[in-house]
């Protein structure tokens, strides 16, 4: 009999992560992928191991994109999506 997973339902998807600009300086040790269902959940999951990064992600005007589309922190994520986080730039 072939192995089968019964009653298992995937609730999170494997997501590729990109931390743009100076956020990359805080994310050097962060894995390239993570399991999560929304960008907000990615932030929550990173908090235990990367509090300095998450502090930056909690700044106002941080932008989030999924597959090069700007989205909200609550956007549902599909497996294989690339989620990018962009720090605010406000000077002129």
């Amino acid at each position, binding site marked *: 009999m072939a192995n089968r997973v019964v009653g298992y339902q995937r609730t999170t998807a494997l997501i590729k992560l990109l931390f743009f600009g100076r956020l990359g300086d805080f994310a050097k040790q962060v894995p390239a992928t993570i399991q999560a269902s929304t960008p907000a959940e990615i932030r929550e999951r990173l908090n235990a191991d990367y509090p300095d990064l998450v502090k930056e992600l909690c700044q*106002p005007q941080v932008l989030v994109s999924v597959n090069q589309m700007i989205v909200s922190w609550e956007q549902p994520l599909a497996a294989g999506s690339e989620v990018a986080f962009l720090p605010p730039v*406000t000077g002129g």
Partner: protein
Amino acid sequence: MINSHEQFMRYSRHLLMDDIGESGQQKLTEARVLIVGLGGLGCPVALYLAAAGIGQLTLCDADIVELSNLQRQILYKETDCGELKVNCAKRELLALNPDLQISSYAAEVSAELLVNPYDVVVDCTDNLAARQLINHHCCQQKTAFVSASALGWEGQLVAFDFAHNPSLCLNCIIDKGSAEPLLNCSNSGVVGPVLGAMGSLQATTVIRMLLGFFQQHGELQRYDGKSGRWLNLRAEAKPGCDVCS
């Protein structure tokens, strides 16, 4: 009309291009552009637009030139310190191209200034409140709007052609209720040429809009000068946006 040898020579590198030529130069000559902010972004924007022959430029900035500006604000000289930026800029731009009509406002951007008719408004400010005020008026008046910002090694640009795309505005991307971030150029610094790159891109976008080539409404471009990487992001109108919907 190119009606003198001097004008023919001045704009010859535009006139040589099939997709600009005399008719394109005429559009630039007749254009009215407001530049809000004459700092690190506004300086290259103003210089390139004046050089390109934008006929009517309006300059808005309340500040005076300070020594700490000279690392990146390329219109000003050390002898300008203590003088209003708009006065220095107007003098330098007219020295570059005396055919232009240049108006200057030594004040913060206001609704009164923004209700005047412009073909393009260029946001070179350093705070969200000013950006959102400009966004609101441009959206209401269907005026093209080019916004940029920079910090550290990074720059950002987004532009809106409200005449052809009434929905999707700056408020859809960055909510006007957002607080200002802790970091700004005054407390964390900025690399001068990053502002130059973004300002040059703003000026290019203005020219593209005036010539009818612009098609990137609401597309956000990010530049990281430290890694040399660019990122282009699309955006969608926010349902119920109280500015554009």
